[in-house]
Protein backbone atom coordinates (compact mmCIF):
# COMPACT_ATOMS: atom_id res chain seq x y z
CA UNK A 1 0.00 0.00 0.00
CA UNK A 2 1.45 3.40 -0.97
CA UNK A 3 1.83 6.17 1.58
CA UNK A 4 -0.56 9.09 2.02
CA UNK A 5 1.07 12.30 0.95
CA UNK A 6 -1.97 14.45 1.80
CA UNK A 7 -4.16 13.89 4.83
CA UNK A 8 -7.15 16.13 5.54
CA UNK A 9 -9.33 15.71 8.63
CA UNK A 10 -12.57 17.61 9.39
CA UNK A 11 -11.53 20.65 7.42
CA UNK A 12 -13.88 23.59 7.74
CA UNK A 13 -13.78 27.12 6.35
CA UNK A 14 -16.33 29.75 7.22
CA UNK A 15 -16.05 33.38 6.22
CA UNK A 16 -18.17 36.50 6.30
CA UNK A 17 -19.14 38.39 3.20
CA UNK A 18 -21.56 41.26 2.75
CA UNK A 19 -24.78 41.53 0.80
CA UNK A 20 -24.85 44.67 -1.28
CA UNK A 21 -27.74 44.24 -3.68
CA UNK A 22 -27.61 45.24 -7.32
CA UNK A 23 -29.70 48.39 -7.67
CA UNK A 24 -28.45 51.95 -7.32
CA UNK A 25 -30.51 52.28 -4.14
CA UNK A 26 -28.82 49.18 -2.70
CA UNK A 27 -25.39 50.55 -3.63
CA UNK A 28 -26.04 53.84 -1.84
CA UNK A 29 -27.49 51.99 1.15
CA UNK A 30 -24.41 49.74 1.31
CA UNK A 31 -22.25 52.84 1.91
CA UNK A 32 -23.79 53.05 5.38
CA UNK A 33 -25.24 49.63 6.20
CA UNK A 34 -24.08 46.25 4.95
CA UNK A 35 -25.75 43.00 5.85
CA UNK A 36 -23.16 40.40 6.85
CA UNK A 37 -23.54 36.97 5.34
CA UNK A 38 -21.85 33.94 6.85
CA UNK A 39 -20.65 31.47 4.22
CA UNK A 40 -19.65 27.93 5.15
CA UNK A 41 -17.49 27.20 2.12
CA UNK A 42 -16.05 23.89 3.35
CA UNK A 43 -17.93 21.67 5.80
CA UNK A 44 -15.84 19.18 7.78
CA UNK A 45 -14.32 17.35 4.83
CA UNK A 46 -11.79 14.54 5.23
CA UNK A 47 -9.76 12.68 2.60
CA UNK A 48 -6.36 11.25 1.79
CA UNK A 49 -4.30 11.30 -1.38
CA UNK A 50 -1.53 8.80 -2.04
CA UNK A 51 1.96 9.61 -3.27
CA UNK A 52 2.30 9.48 -7.08
CA UNK A 53 -1.45 9.93 -7.59
CA UNK A 54 -3.23 12.16 -10.08
CA UNK A 55 -6.34 13.21 -8.23
CA UNK A 56 -9.21 15.03 -9.91
CA UNK A 57 -10.76 17.46 -7.43
CA UNK A 58 -14.09 18.30 -9.00
CA UNK A 59 -17.21 20.24 -8.23
CA UNK A 60 -19.56 22.83 -9.70
CA UNK A 61 -18.84 26.54 -9.37
CA UNK A 62 -19.06 27.66 -5.74
CA UNK A 63 -18.80 24.09 -4.42
CA UNK A 64 -15.83 24.85 -2.18
CA UNK A 65 -13.07 23.20 -4.20
CA UNK A 66 -11.04 26.38 -4.77
CA UNK A 67 -11.29 27.28 -1.08
CA UNK A 68 -10.05 23.78 -0.20
CA UNK A 69 -7.18 24.04 -2.68
CA UNK A 70 -6.23 27.44 -1.28
CA UNK A 71 -6.05 25.94 2.20
CA UNK A 72 -4.00 23.02 0.86
CA UNK A 73 -1.56 25.40 -0.83
CA UNK A 74 -1.12 27.48 2.34
CA UNK A 75 -2.88 30.54 0.91
CA UNK A 76 -5.79 30.51 3.36
CA UNK A 77 -6.18 29.64 7.01
CA UNK A 78 -9.00 27.17 7.75
CA UNK A 79 -11.60 27.87 10.44
CA UNK A 80 -10.78 24.50 11.96
CA UNK A 81 -9.55 21.05 10.96
CA UNK A 82 -6.27 19.29 10.34
CA UNK A 83 -4.17 19.12 7.20
CA UNK A 84 -0.89 17.31 6.86
CA UNK A 85 0.94 17.46 3.55
CA UNK A 86 4.49 16.13 3.24
CA UNK A 87 4.66 16.40 7.02
CA UNK A 88 3.74 20.09 7.06
CA UNK A 89 0.71 22.05 8.17
CA UNK A 90 0.45 24.37 5.12
CA UNK A 91 -0.71 27.58 6.83
CA UNK A 92 1.64 27.18 9.79
CA UNK A 93 4.84 26.18 7.97
CA UNK A 94 4.00 27.92 4.72
CA UNK A 95 7.48 28.89 3.55
CA UNK A 96 9.09 25.48 4.08
CA UNK A 97 6.03 23.73 2.69
CA UNK A 98 5.54 25.72 -0.53
CA UNK A 99 9.21 25.13 -1.45
CA UNK A 100 8.16 21.52 -2.05
CA UNK A 101 4.97 22.12 -4.02
CA UNK A 102 4.08 23.82 -7.28
CA UNK A 103 0.89 25.38 -8.56
CA UNK A 104 -0.56 26.31 -11.92
CA UNK A 105 -3.57 28.59 -11.95
CA UNK A 106 -5.26 28.69 -15.33
CA UNK A 107 -6.61 32.16 -14.64
CA UNK A 108 -3.73 33.69 -12.68
CA UNK A 109 -0.43 34.02 -14.48
CA UNK A 110 2.98 33.78 -12.88
CA UNK A 111 4.57 35.07 -16.07
CA UNK A 112 5.41 38.76 -16.50
CA UNK A 113 3.37 40.33 -19.25
CA UNK A 114 5.91 42.58 -20.94
CA UNK A 115 9.04 40.49 -20.72
CA UNK A 116 9.98 37.04 -22.02
CA UNK A 117 9.23 33.85 -20.06
CA UNK A 118 12.99 33.31 -19.72
CA UNK A 119 13.17 36.34 -17.39
CA UNK A 120 10.28 35.06 -15.27
CA UNK A 121 12.04 31.69 -15.00
CA UNK A 122 15.21 33.45 -13.88
CA UNK A 123 13.27 35.35 -11.19
CA UNK A 124 11.82 32.07 -9.95
CA UNK A 125 15.26 30.48 -9.95
CA UNK A 126 16.32 33.18 -7.52
CA UNK A 127 13.13 32.91 -5.41
CA UNK A 128 13.45 29.12 -5.03
CA UNK A 129 17.24 29.36 -4.77
CA UNK A 130 17.64 26.64 -7.41
CA UNK A 131 21.31 25.81 -8.13
CA UNK A 132 22.26 27.06 -11.58
CA UNK A 133 23.14 23.66 -13.07
CA UNK A 134 19.91 22.04 -11.83
CA UNK A 135 17.92 25.00 -13.15
CA UNK A 136 19.51 24.71 -16.59
CA UNK A 137 18.96 20.95 -16.71
CA UNK A 138 15.30 21.18 -15.64
CA UNK A 139 14.58 24.10 -17.94
CA UNK A 140 16.15 22.42 -20.97
CA UNK A 141 14.23 19.18 -20.33
CA UNK A 142 10.86 20.92 -19.93
CA UNK A 143 11.39 23.31 -22.84
CA UNK A 144 12.01 20.29 -25.05
CA UNK A 145 9.12 18.29 -23.64
CA UNK A 146 6.66 21.15 -24.11
CA UNK A 147 8.24 22.35 -27.34
CA UNK A 148 8.51 26.01 -26.34
CA UNK A 149 12.14 26.70 -27.26
CA UNK A 150 11.19 29.35 -29.81
CA UNK A 151 9.13 31.45 -27.42
CA UNK A 152 11.64 31.73 -24.57
CA UNK A 153 12.91 35.14 -25.71
CA UNK A 154 9.61 36.66 -26.87
CA UNK A 155 7.59 39.00 -24.62
CA UNK A 156 4.82 37.07 -22.89
CA UNK A 157 2.13 39.37 -24.30
CA UNK A 158 2.82 38.14 -27.88
CA UNK A 159 2.53 34.44 -26.96
CA UNK A 160 -0.55 32.35 -27.64
CA UNK A 161 -2.61 31.12 -24.70
CA UNK A 162 -1.26 27.60 -25.23
CA UNK A 163 2.35 28.79 -25.22
CA UNK A 164 1.74 30.83 -22.10
CA UNK A 165 0.15 27.90 -20.29
CA UNK A 166 3.08 25.64 -21.17
CA UNK A 167 5.41 28.27 -19.68
CA UNK A 168 3.21 28.39 -16.55
CA UNK A 169 3.87 24.67 -16.14
CA UNK A 170 7.61 25.25 -16.45
CA UNK A 171 7.53 27.94 -13.74
CA UNK A 172 5.56 25.64 -11.46
CA UNK A 173 7.97 22.74 -11.90
CA UNK A 174 11.44 24.29 -12.16
CA UNK A 175 12.18 23.52 -8.52
CA UNK A 176 11.21 19.81 -8.74
CA UNK A 177 8.05 19.99 -6.58
CA UNK A 178 6.76 16.75 -5.12
CA UNK A 179 3.12 17.85 -5.40
CA UNK A 180 1.66 20.14 -8.07
CA UNK A 181 -1.77 21.75 -7.76
CA UNK A 182 -3.41 22.42 -11.12
CA UNK A 183 -6.38 24.79 -11.11
CA UNK A 184 -8.11 24.78 -14.51
CA UNK A 185 -4.82 24.22 -16.37
CA UNK A 186 -6.34 23.73 -19.82
CA UNK A 187 -9.01 26.42 -19.73
CA UNK A 188 -9.43 28.02 -23.16
CA UNK A 189 -6.80 25.87 -24.87
CA UNK A 190 -7.15 24.18 -28.26
CA UNK A 191 -7.11 20.39 -28.61
CA UNK A 192 -3.44 20.20 -29.61
CA UNK A 193 -2.26 22.34 -26.68
CA UNK A 194 -4.44 20.34 -24.27
CA UNK A 195 -2.96 17.07 -25.46
CA UNK A 196 0.58 18.42 -25.13
CA UNK A 197 -0.10 19.52 -21.56
CA UNK A 198 -1.80 16.24 -20.64
CA UNK A 199 1.19 14.36 -22.04
CA UNK A 200 3.50 16.53 -19.95
CA UNK A 201 1.51 15.89 -16.76
CA UNK A 202 1.55 12.13 -17.42
CA UNK A 203 5.30 12.16 -18.01
CA UNK A 204 5.98 14.13 -14.84
CA UNK A 205 3.65 11.85 -12.90
CA UNK A 206 5.60 8.82 -14.10
CA UNK A 207 8.70 10.46 -12.69
CA UNK A 208 6.98 10.60 -9.29
CA UNK A 209 5.19 13.97 -9.07
CA UNK A 210 1.76 13.89 -7.44
CA UNK A 211 -0.87 16.07 -9.13
CA UNK A 212 -4.08 17.52 -7.72
CA UNK A 213 -6.23 18.65 -10.61
CA UNK A 214 -9.18 21.01 -10.41
CA UNK A 215 -11.03 21.36 -13.67
CA UNK A 216 -14.39 21.55 -15.38
CA UNK A 217 -12.90 19.84 -18.45
CA UNK A 218 -13.92 16.20 -18.05
CA UNK A 219 -11.60 15.14 -20.87
CA UNK A 220 -8.76 16.24 -18.58
CA UNK A 221 -10.26 14.12 -15.83
CA UNK A 222 -10.73 11.02 -17.97
CA UNK A 223 -7.33 11.36 -19.54
CA UNK A 224 -5.35 12.05 -16.36
CA UNK A 225 -7.06 11.33 -13.05
CA UNK A 226 -6.99 8.00 -11.29
CA UNK A 227 -8.70 9.18 -8.11
CA UNK A 228 -11.72 11.47 -8.07
CA UNK A 229 -12.89 13.64 -5.22
CA UNK A 230 -16.21 15.32 -5.89
CA UNK A 231 -17.24 18.21 -3.71
CA UNK A 232 -20.55 20.02 -3.69
CA UNK A 233 -22.00 22.55 -1.25
CA UNK A 234 -18.79 22.24 0.77
CA UNK A 235 -19.12 18.48 1.30
CA UNK A 236 -17.45 15.49 -0.33
CA UNK A 237 -20.01 13.44 -2.25
CA UNK A 238 -17.63 11.01 -3.96
CA UNK A 239 -14.08 9.91 -3.19
CA UNK A 240 -12.92 6.82 -5.07
CA UNK A 241 -10.99 5.60 -8.11
CA UNK A 242 -12.35 6.90 -11.43
CA UNK A 243 -13.47 3.39 -12.45
CA UNK A 244 -16.02 3.44 -9.66
CA UNK A 245 -17.47 6.73 -10.83
CA UNK A 246 -19.38 5.27 -13.78
CA UNK A 247 -20.77 2.59 -11.44
CA UNK A 248 -21.84 5.11 -8.82
CA UNK A 249 -25.50 4.85 -9.73
CA UNK A 250 -25.31 1.08 -10.29
CA UNK A 251 -23.92 -0.82 -13.22
CA UNK A 252 -25.26 0.86 -16.32
CA UNK A 253 -24.47 0.85 -20.05
CA UNK A 254 -25.37 3.17 -22.86
CA UNK A 255 -26.79 1.25 -25.83
CA UNK A 256 -27.18 2.50 -29.38
CA UNK A 257 -29.68 0.30 -31.16
CA UNK A 258 -30.67 0.01 -34.86
CA UNK A 259 -33.44 -2.45 -35.63
CA UNK A 260 -35.64 -3.69 -38.45
CA UNK A 261 -38.84 -3.12 -36.49
CA UNK A 262 -40.18 0.07 -34.89
CA UNK A 263 -38.89 0.92 -31.38
CA UNK A 264 -41.80 3.26 -30.58
CA UNK A 265 -43.50 0.98 -28.07
CA UNK A 266 -40.34 -0.85 -27.02
CA UNK A 267 -40.13 -1.16 -23.22
CA UNK A 268 -38.20 -3.49 -20.91
CA UNK A 269 -37.58 -3.39 -17.16
CA UNK A 270 -34.30 -1.56 -16.40
CA UNK A 271 -34.24 0.09 -19.83
CA UNK A 272 -34.55 3.86 -20.14
CA UNK A 273 -34.95 5.57 -23.51
CA UNK A 274 -32.57 8.51 -23.90
CA UNK A 275 -33.29 9.79 -27.40
CA UNK A 276 -34.53 8.48 -30.73
CA UNK A 277 -33.26 9.41 -34.22
CA UNK A 278 -36.15 7.69 -35.98
CA UNK A 279 -38.56 4.80 -35.39
CA UNK A 280 -35.83 2.17 -35.78
CA UNK A 281 -32.78 3.95 -34.31
CA UNK A 282 -32.50 5.00 -30.65
CA UNK A 283 -30.23 5.38 -27.61
CA UNK A 284 -30.98 3.67 -24.29
CA UNK A 285 -29.58 3.39 -20.80
CA UNK A 286 -29.62 -0.15 -19.46
CA UNK A 287 -29.40 -0.98 -15.77
CA UNK A 288 -27.57 -4.32 -15.70
CA UNK A 289 -28.58 -4.97 -12.10
CA UNK A 290 -32.19 -5.17 -13.27
CA UNK A 291 -31.71 -6.64 -16.73
CA UNK A 292 -28.45 -8.44 -17.53
CA UNK A 293 -26.94 -7.74 -20.94
CA UNK A 294 -27.44 -11.28 -22.21
CA UNK A 295 -31.17 -11.20 -21.39
CA UNK A 296 -31.54 -7.75 -22.92
CA UNK A 297 -29.89 -8.85 -26.18
CA UNK A 298 -32.12 -11.92 -26.44
CA UNK A 299 -35.34 -10.00 -25.79
CA UNK A 300 -34.43 -7.00 -27.94
CA UNK A 301 -33.50 -9.24 -30.87
CA UNK A 302 -36.72 -11.19 -30.53
CA UNK A 303 -38.95 -8.10 -30.32
CA UNK A 304 -37.15 -5.72 -32.67
CA UNK A 305 -34.77 -7.80 -34.75
CA UNK A 306 -31.41 -6.08 -34.14
CA UNK A 307 -29.67 -4.77 -37.27
CA UNK A 308 -26.71 -2.99 -35.63
CA UNK A 309 -25.76 -1.87 -32.14
CA UNK A 310 -23.02 -0.45 -29.92
CA UNK A 311 -22.56 -0.71 -26.15
CA UNK A 312 -20.67 2.01 -24.23
CA UNK A 313 -19.95 2.97 -20.66
CA UNK A 314 -22.11 5.78 -19.30
CA UNK A 315 -20.26 9.05 -20.16
CA UNK A 316 -18.46 10.46 -17.12
CA UNK A 317 -20.09 13.85 -17.63
CA UNK A 318 -23.55 12.31 -17.27
CA UNK A 319 -22.52 10.72 -13.98
CA UNK A 320 -20.92 13.88 -12.67
CA UNK A 321 -23.87 16.03 -13.70
CA UNK A 322 -26.18 13.63 -11.88
CA UNK A 323 -23.92 13.70 -8.84
CA UNK A 324 -23.85 17.50 -8.79
CA UNK A 325 -27.64 17.47 -8.75
CA UNK A 326 -28.13 14.75 -6.14
CA UNK A 327 -27.22 16.55 -2.95
CA UNK A 328 -28.87 19.88 -2.33
CA UNK A 329 -28.14 22.06 0.68
CA UNK A 330 -30.35 21.64 3.70
CA UNK A 331 -31.96 24.99 4.27
Amino acid at each position, binding site marked *: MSESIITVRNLNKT*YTTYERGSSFKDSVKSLFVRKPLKVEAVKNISFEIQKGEICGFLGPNGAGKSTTLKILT*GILFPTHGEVNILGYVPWKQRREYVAR*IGAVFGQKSQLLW*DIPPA*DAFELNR*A*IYNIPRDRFKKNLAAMVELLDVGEVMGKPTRVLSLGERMKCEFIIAMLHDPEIVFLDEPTIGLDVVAKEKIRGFVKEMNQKGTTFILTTHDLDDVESLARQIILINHGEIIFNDPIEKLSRFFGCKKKINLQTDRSQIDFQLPGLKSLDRRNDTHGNYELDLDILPLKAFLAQADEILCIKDMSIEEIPIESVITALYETKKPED
Partner: protein
Amino acid sequence: MIKSAFAVYIQGIKTAIASRMAYRTDYFIGITVMLIWEMVVPMVVFLIYRSGVAFPNWNIYEVLLIQGIFMIAKGISYPCFFGIVWNTIVRVQEGTFDLLLIKPRSALFMALVTGFDAEDLGKLLGGGVLTGICLANLPPANLAQWLNMFIYFILGQGVMFSFAVIMAGTGIKWVGNFRLYEIFDSVTAFGIYPQSIFAKPIRIIISYIIPIAMIGAFPASILLGKPVPQLGWVSLGVAGFLTLSLFYWRRMLASYTSAGG
Protein backbone atom coordinates in the same frame (compact mmCIF):
# COMPACT_ATOMS: atom_id res chain seq x y z
CA MET B 1 19.90 33.65 3.75
CA ILE B 2 20.56 37.40 3.44
CA LYS B 3 22.70 36.78 0.36
CA SER B 4 19.90 34.75 -1.21
CA ALA B 5 17.29 37.41 -0.35
CA PHE B 6 19.52 40.10 -1.84
CA ALA B 7 19.93 38.03 -5.03
CA VAL B 8 16.12 37.72 -5.32
CA TYR B 9 15.69 41.45 -4.74
CA ILE B 10 18.27 42.33 -7.42
CA GLN B 11 16.58 39.95 -9.84
CA GLY B 12 13.24 41.62 -9.01
CA ILE B 13 14.73 45.04 -9.82
CA LYS B 14 16.16 43.79 -13.12
CA THR B 15 12.79 42.30 -14.04
CA ALA B 16 10.88 45.46 -13.09
CA ILE B 17 13.21 47.68 -15.11
CA ALA B 18 12.99 45.34 -18.11
CA SER B 19 9.17 45.44 -17.85
CA ARG B 20 9.11 49.23 -17.60
CA MET B 21 11.48 49.65 -20.56
CA ALA B 22 8.90 47.94 -22.75
CA TYR B 23 7.09 51.30 -22.72
CA ARG B 24 9.98 53.76 -22.69
CA THR B 25 8.06 56.85 -23.83
CA ASP B 26 5.45 56.37 -21.15
CA TYR B 27 8.24 55.85 -18.63
CA PHE B 28 10.03 59.10 -19.44
CA ILE B 29 6.78 61.10 -19.58
CA GLY B 30 5.82 59.54 -16.24
CA ILE B 31 9.11 60.60 -14.65
CA THR B 32 8.72 64.17 -15.99
CA VAL B 33 5.14 64.52 -14.75
CA MET B 34 6.16 63.14 -11.36
CA LEU B 35 9.03 65.62 -11.17
CA ILE B 36 6.68 68.55 -11.88
CA TRP B 37 4.13 67.27 -9.35
CA GLU B 38 6.74 66.84 -6.61
CA MET B 39 7.97 70.39 -7.17
CA VAL B 40 4.57 71.89 -6.31
CA VAL B 41 5.17 72.15 -2.54
CA PRO B 42 8.68 73.66 -2.89
CA MET B 43 7.24 76.14 -5.42
CA VAL B 44 4.52 77.15 -2.95
CA VAL B 45 7.19 77.71 -0.27
CA PHE B 46 9.20 79.74 -2.77
CA LEU B 47 6.17 81.92 -3.60
CA ILE B 48 5.36 82.41 0.12
CA TYR B 49 8.90 83.65 0.81
CA ARG B 50 8.81 85.87 -2.31
CA SER B 51 5.70 87.55 -0.89
CA GLY B 52 7.65 88.45 2.25
CA VAL B 53 6.16 85.90 4.64
CA ALA B 54 8.54 83.44 6.35
CA PHE B 55 8.77 80.70 8.98
CA PRO B 56 10.43 82.33 12.06
CA ASN B 57 14.22 81.71 12.15
CA TRP B 58 14.18 79.72 8.92
CA ASN B 59 15.30 81.15 5.58
CA ILE B 60 13.95 79.85 2.29
CA TYR B 61 16.89 77.53 1.55
CA GLU B 62 16.66 75.97 5.01
CA VAL B 63 12.95 75.20 4.52
CA LEU B 64 13.54 73.91 0.99
CA LEU B 65 16.36 71.70 2.30
CA ILE B 66 13.82 69.84 4.46
CA GLN B 67 11.66 69.33 1.41
CA GLY B 68 14.63 68.33 -0.74
CA ILE B 69 15.73 65.67 1.75
CA PHE B 70 12.13 64.55 2.15
CA MET B 71 11.96 64.09 -1.64
CA ILE B 72 15.22 62.13 -1.62
CA ALA B 73 13.76 59.94 1.13
CA LYS B 74 10.71 59.32 -1.04
CA GLY B 75 12.94 58.92 -4.10
CA ILE B 76 14.72 56.04 -2.39
CA SER B 77 11.80 54.44 -0.56
CA TYR B 78 9.19 54.64 -3.32
CA PRO B 79 11.12 52.65 -5.92
CA CYS B 80 12.91 50.37 -3.47
CA PHE B 81 10.17 49.30 -1.08
CA PHE B 82 7.10 51.52 -1.12
CA GLY B 83 5.85 49.47 -4.10
CA ILE B 84 4.56 46.92 -1.59
CA VAL B 85 1.57 49.25 -1.15
CA TRP B 86 0.23 49.40 -4.71
CA ASN B 87 1.45 45.87 -5.38
CA THR B 88 -0.55 44.50 -2.46
CA ILE B 89 -3.66 46.60 -3.16
CA VAL B 90 -3.75 45.63 -6.85
CA ARG B 91 -2.96 41.96 -6.23
CA VAL B 92 -5.57 41.57 -3.50
CA GLN B 93 -8.14 43.25 -5.73
CA GLU B 94 -7.29 41.03 -8.74
CA GLY B 95 -6.80 37.86 -6.72
CA THR B 96 -3.14 37.46 -7.71
CA PHE B 97 -1.90 38.01 -4.15
CA ASP B 98 -2.28 34.22 -3.92
CA LEU B 99 0.72 33.88 -6.23
CA LEU B 100 2.95 35.58 -3.66
CA LEU B 101 1.81 33.15 -0.98
CA ILE B 102 2.84 30.06 -2.95
CA LYS B 103 6.47 31.19 -3.00
CA PRO B 104 8.91 30.06 -0.30
CA ARG B 105 9.57 33.59 0.95
CA SER B 106 7.70 35.87 3.30
CA ALA B 107 4.66 37.45 1.65
CA LEU B 108 5.99 40.91 2.54
CA PHE B 109 9.32 40.16 0.89
CA MET B 110 7.57 38.85 -2.22
CA ALA B 111 5.43 42.00 -2.37
CA LEU B 112 8.68 43.98 -2.13
CA VAL B 113 10.50 42.00 -4.83
CA THR B 114 7.63 42.22 -7.30
CA GLY B 115 6.80 45.83 -6.43
CA PHE B 116 9.94 47.71 -7.50
CA ASP B 117 8.83 50.86 -9.28
CA ALA B 118 11.46 52.36 -11.59
CA GLU B 119 9.24 55.37 -12.37
CA ASP B 120 9.55 56.68 -8.82
CA LEU B 121 13.24 57.35 -9.44
CA GLY B 122 11.96 60.73 -10.67
CA LYS B 123 11.44 61.72 -7.03
CA LEU B 124 15.09 60.96 -6.29
CA LEU B 125 16.22 63.10 -9.20
CA GLY B 126 14.01 66.02 -8.13
CA GLY B 127 15.05 65.73 -4.49
CA GLY B 128 18.73 65.60 -5.45
CA VAL B 129 18.49 68.75 -7.55
CA LEU B 130 16.51 70.66 -4.90
CA THR B 131 18.87 69.59 -2.08
CA GLY B 132 21.90 70.49 -4.21
CA ILE B 133 20.55 74.01 -4.87
CA CYS B 134 19.82 74.54 -1.17
CA LEU B 135 23.22 73.26 0.01
CA ALA B 136 24.97 75.51 -2.49
CA ASN B 137 23.27 78.48 -0.84
CA LEU B 138 23.84 77.44 2.79
CA PRO B 139 26.96 77.30 4.99
CA PRO B 140 28.71 73.93 4.48
CA ALA B 141 28.14 71.19 7.09
CA ASN B 142 31.10 69.33 8.63
CA LEU B 143 31.80 65.59 8.40
CA ALA B 144 30.30 64.83 11.83
CA GLN B 145 27.07 66.55 10.80
CA TRP B 146 26.95 64.54 7.56
CA LEU B 147 27.49 61.26 9.44
CA ASN B 148 24.85 62.14 12.01
CA MET B 149 22.46 63.20 9.27
CA PHE B 150 23.05 59.89 7.49
CA ILE B 151 22.08 57.91 10.62
CA TYR B 152 18.87 59.91 11.07
CA PHE B 153 18.14 59.57 7.36
CA ILE B 154 18.44 55.76 7.54
CA LEU B 155 16.06 55.77 10.52
CA GLY B 156 13.74 57.93 8.41
CA GLN B 157 13.77 55.16 5.79
CA GLY B 158 12.69 52.82 8.59
CA VAL B 159 9.73 55.12 9.21
CA MET B 160 8.88 55.10 5.50
CA PHE B 161 9.07 51.31 5.48
CA SER B 162 6.77 51.13 8.51
CA PHE B 163 4.24 53.37 6.77
CA ALA B 164 4.45 51.19 3.66
CA VAL B 165 3.85 48.03 5.70
CA ILE B 166 0.85 49.56 7.49
CA MET B 167 -0.64 50.78 4.20
CA ALA B 168 -0.04 47.43 2.47
CA GLY B 169 -1.56 45.58 5.43
CA THR B 170 -4.59 47.84 5.29
CA GLY B 171 -4.82 47.07 1.55
CA ILE B 172 -5.32 43.38 2.38
CA LYS B 173 -8.46 44.10 4.35
CA TRP B 174 -9.60 47.36 2.74
CA VAL B 175 -9.72 45.97 -0.78
CA GLY B 176 -8.95 48.27 -3.71
CA ASN B 177 -8.57 51.45 -1.71
CA PHE B 178 -5.97 53.78 -3.22
CA ARG B 179 -7.07 56.62 -0.95
CA LEU B 180 -4.40 55.30 1.40
CA TYR B 181 -1.81 57.34 -0.52
CA GLU B 182 -3.76 60.54 0.10
CA ILE B 183 -4.05 59.73 3.79
CA PHE B 184 -0.29 59.07 3.86
CA ASP B 185 0.49 62.36 2.08
CA SER B 186 -1.71 64.27 4.55
CA VAL B 187 -0.05 62.67 7.57
CA THR B 188 3.51 63.11 6.29
CA ALA B 189 2.85 66.77 5.43
CA PHE B 190 3.78 67.39 9.09
CA GLY B 191 7.31 66.29 8.22
CA ILE B 192 8.08 68.75 5.44
CA TYR B 193 8.06 71.95 7.46
CA PRO B 194 10.30 73.19 10.31
CA GLN B 195 9.27 71.42 13.51
CA SER B 196 9.41 74.67 15.47
CA ILE B 197 6.15 75.86 13.86
CA PHE B 198 4.16 73.06 15.56
CA ALA B 199 2.79 72.95 19.13
CA LYS B 200 4.74 70.80 21.60
CA PRO B 201 2.24 67.87 21.73
CA ILE B 202 2.34 67.58 17.94
CA ARG B 203 6.15 67.75 17.99
CA ILE B 204 6.24 64.88 20.49
CA ILE B 205 3.90 62.76 18.38
CA ILE B 206 5.77 63.31 15.11
CA SER B 207 9.17 62.86 16.78
CA TYR B 208 8.62 59.72 18.87
CA ILE B 209 5.24 58.07 18.31
CA ILE B 210 4.62 58.39 14.57
CA PRO B 211 8.13 59.68 13.80
CA ILE B 212 7.41 61.53 10.57
CA ALA B 213 10.00 64.18 11.43
CA MET B 214 12.70 61.54 10.95
CA ILE B 215 12.03 61.46 7.21
CA GLY B 216 13.13 64.97 6.26
CA ALA B 217 12.97 67.51 9.07
CA PHE B 218 15.54 66.02 11.47
CA PRO B 219 18.18 65.09 8.86
CA ALA B 220 17.92 68.58 7.37
CA SER B 221 18.08 70.21 10.84
CA ILE B 222 21.31 68.32 11.57
CA LEU B 223 22.95 69.65 8.40
CA LEU B 224 21.79 73.14 9.37
CA GLY B 225 23.20 72.82 12.89
CA LYS B 226 19.76 73.12 14.47
CA PRO B 227 18.77 71.07 17.57
CA VAL B 228 17.18 67.62 17.13
CA PRO B 229 15.98 65.05 19.72
CA GLN B 230 18.58 62.56 21.00
CA LEU B 231 19.32 59.61 18.77
CA GLY B 232 18.53 57.02 21.47
CA TRP B 233 14.98 58.23 22.05
CA VAL B 234 14.08 58.67 18.39
CA SER B 235 15.60 55.25 17.60
CA LEU B 236 13.28 53.73 20.17
CA GLY B 237 10.34 55.54 18.56
CA VAL B 238 11.28 54.24 15.10
CA ALA B 239 11.83 50.68 16.40
CA GLY B 240 8.44 50.77 18.12
CA PHE B 241 6.70 52.07 15.02
CA LEU B 242 8.38 49.41 12.85
CA THR B 243 7.48 46.60 15.26
CA LEU B 244 3.89 47.79 15.38
CA SER B 245 3.69 47.88 11.58
CA LEU B 246 5.04 44.33 11.21
CA PHE B 247 2.63 43.06 13.86
CA TYR B 248 -0.23 44.80 12.02
CA TRP B 249 0.86 43.21 8.71
CA ARG B 250 0.82 39.72 10.24
CA ARG B 251 -2.65 40.27 11.63
CA MET B 252 -3.94 41.50 8.28
CA LEU B 253 -2.27 38.64 6.40
CA ALA B 254 -3.91 36.08 8.69
CA SER B 255 -7.29 37.59 7.82
CA TYR B 256 -6.65 37.40 4.05
CA THR B 257 -9.66 35.85 2.32
CA SER B 258 -8.42 35.72 -1.30
CA ALA B 259 -10.70 36.33 -4.28
CA GLY B 260 -13.27 33.79 -5.43
CA GLY B 261 -12.72 31.09 -8.05
